[in-house]
């Protein structure tokens, strides 16, 4: 599926000369879908109420003064709840807890620490972030010092020409790991859907196209930067002479952007909203209100007493009505 996708721009640009479509129209369209879609999904989640205060408490709650509260895992103030979510986003804290269960003779269950998924996931996501930030040099006339620094740090191992990016290797290694674990672990085989492989393969293809452009075919970056600057300034100038591989790279990025809001990739937005993580564990101290708190009729004491009055009197229980 991904290779078919990669073939489209190759044919389109190389044979049909549709550089304008693939270089200008499609990127605009993709960005519109990504931003509009992402915003729509977020708003769609946010407009739904959170009826109850349901944090998953992973540490000691705030109670008696002399009992040490786990402020991060059982937060009682907004600040700590925010920190809980942020450490989840930045460091994948819950995933860090991951264990692997094993059955031994006995039967005896054992749970070993299993940090590979955490490490792989973290490496993958951080590399992607650095790579996206690095790409900003194509979108900005003047690259800010901080990004320049990031770029230099990433080129720390100056072993190839042009200088090799650490994150290129890291992202390839981690994405390969993420694919392999879905193929090799029998549990992962059962739960993985084509929709889980597709974005991984798409990202792999984007990376390979990108790396090839930089290290193999050495696409001339000047017209690329000109095209990108034109795009970020909402211009409609046709692109200059750029190698076809660039169009493959760009097209796949556009596909990823279009696919994003409709897919599980929206976990990037959802993670901020998860009610089991972003709420305070203070539901006994402070009332959480439910906008639709349904009206129900419960069995009142007087109905109960009406049914059992004689028996209650016999048992010498006080009654409201004689």
């Amino acid at each position, binding site marked *: 599926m991904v290779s078919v996708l990669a073939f489209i721009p190759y044919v389109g640009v190389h044979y049909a000369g549709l550089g304008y479509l693939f270089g200008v129209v499609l990127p605009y369209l993709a960005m519109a879908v990504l931003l509009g879609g992402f915003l729509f999904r977020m708003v769609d989640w946010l407009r739904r109420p959170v009826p109850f*205060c349901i944090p998953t*408490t992973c540490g000691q709650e705030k109670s008696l003064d002399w*009992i040490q509260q786990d402020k991060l895992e059982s937060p009682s103030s907004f600040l700590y709840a925010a920190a809980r979510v942020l450490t989840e986003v930045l460091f994948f804290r*819950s995933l860090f807890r991951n264990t692997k269960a094993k059955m*031994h003779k006995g039967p005896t269950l054992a749970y070993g620490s299993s940090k590979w998924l955490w490490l792989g996931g973290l490496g993958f996501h951080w590399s992607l972030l650095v790579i996206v930030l690095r790409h900003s040099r194509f979108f900005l006339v003047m690259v800010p010092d901080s990004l320049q620094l990031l770029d230099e740090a990433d080129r720390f191992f100056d072993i190839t020409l042009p200088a090799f990016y650490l994150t290129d290797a890291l992202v390839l290694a981690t994405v390969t790991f993420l694919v392999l674990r879905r193929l090799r672990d029998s549990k992962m085989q059962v739960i993985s859907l084509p929709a889980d492989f597709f974005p991984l393969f798409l990202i792999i293809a984007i990376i390979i196209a990108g790396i090839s452009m930089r290290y193999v075919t050495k696409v001339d970056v000047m017209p690329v930067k000109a095209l990108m600057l034109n795009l970020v300034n909402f211009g409609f100038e046709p692109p200059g002479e750029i190698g076809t591989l660039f169009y493959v790279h760009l097209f796949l990025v556009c596909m990823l952007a279009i696919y994003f809001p409709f897919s*599980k990739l929206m976990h990037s937005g959802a993670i901020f909203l998860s009610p089991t993580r972003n709420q305070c564990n203070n*539901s006994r101290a402070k009332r959480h209100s439910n906008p639709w708190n349904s009206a129900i009729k*419960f069995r009142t004491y007087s109905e109960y007493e009406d049914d059992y009055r004689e028996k209650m009197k016999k048992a010498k229980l006080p009654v*409201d009505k004689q």
Partner: protein
Amino acid sequence: MSKYTPKSSELKKEFEEKPTILKGDYLDKEWWDIPVEFRDGNWCFPAKPEVVENLGFPNPRKWTATDSDWKLPVGWEKTISEGLKSRLKKYRSLKLFLDSCVRCGACADKCHFFLGTGDPKNMPVVRAELLRSVYRHDFPLVEKILTGFSGSRKLSAEIIKEWHMYFNQCTECRRCSVFCPFGIDTAEITMLARELLNLIGVNNNWILEPVSNCNRTGNHLGIEPHTFVQNIESLAEDIEDLTGVKVEPTFNRKGAEVLFITPSGDVFGDPGVYTMMGYLLLFHHIGLDYTISTYASEGGNFGMFTSNDMMKKLNAKMYHEAKRLGVKWILGGECGHMWRVVHQYMDTMNGPADFLEMPVSPITGTRFTNAASTKMVHIAEFTADLIYHKKLKLDPKRNDHLRTTFHDSCNIARGMGMFDEPRYVLQQVCNTFHEMPDNTIREQTFCCGSGSGLNTEEYMEIRMRGGLPRANAVKHVKEKHQVNSLVTICAIDRASLPTLMNYWVPGVSVYGLHELVGNALVMQGEKKRTEDLRENPMAGFTKGDDDEE
């Protein structure tokens, strides 16, 4: 042992022969192609028609899970589809949890039912996919077009059977949610899925009968007021026989300072009754001005396993009764899901309780500011505070015949965050305490395997399998530290763990925390104690021997 319980040697053999966690070969199979098989020991009896009628729930009828036709009501597909749609509007949690899973698999081997059955549909991710696949088919546009791609499927009677099976092989324990990088909570999904199933009359008698009883008589067991009183009074007599101290609990008394509510299992079930004796001794020891209600005589709330409205309806009695009696605040006994309801739902559903006062311990003067709004305090917090301020006269030697470990109950752990109070109390009332391994306690605790209304005889096979991880951890401390007592603060644990221990770890008894408190309390005017509340001899306290204290 009943016909629903497999021989433990057979289960052991199964685990020895196939030591992998996931059982079976699924290389060329999709999970949705695996048929659902009901057999003895893996399904709960459906609710009796009269129970369903009594509650005004839909589709009362006689049926069993092994029937090929479940006699679903006309238009049931629409009921489910619209039920799901309306719940997606009401719960951001549901929508988010259905949308955001990336199937990373971190939750897969965290579920006690998966560890005990090896059934792929017991991986929390797949449990949620059971619902998600139908949701994907009905809702988001693009994924609807790409059926095979996104694993979506059309609702069918077969899927209802699958839901019934697997949403009843989830005890809403939230362990998976601890490990999920997005905090996806399968308990939330199971709760709402069970709500949907109840809409078309696919139900569980062991849940709905207590719900119906609780509505009518005030407690799950359907105990009428006079019997309820009689039973507590007979426990008071037992206490007098054992200790020589006469405790005098009051019932439905207006103007008491505190209303005490505990699960009815503590009043009627063995070994819960010993925990009740512990409470009664404690309250007498400190001279607490409290009363027990026969109307709000149930701490537990099986409504939670039925529907949100039912949870609210049953829970409403607590505040209603507190208001009628004019108490200042409410003290709650040892129970798991009761405390999930009290901690996370009660105030929202039936509050604000502005007719009550900020709970203050009349003995120590401690203000329970953490319960400032609900006005309900957990007994472990209350007792920990008493002990910390040295208000109890305790002799931990009286528990020397017990070598203890502590089982964190799921809801107290992951739905409330109370870990240290019960441990503090336990370590003050007994001399020998050993923790189970790290990955099996506190927020990573394993369920007893029978929570959320599954503690029924005919479900024994699934219960024993689901309880394996817990039992295994107990076995570890039994072998390493000669632990013989599993202490817990949950009524369902007290009811279900003895069976589980007998099955996997014979020689370990199950205790409530306040039973041990009751053993250790040195009461004013007591006679010489030689036996614990179970009338078992205490170590070093032989009759006629005068070395006590």
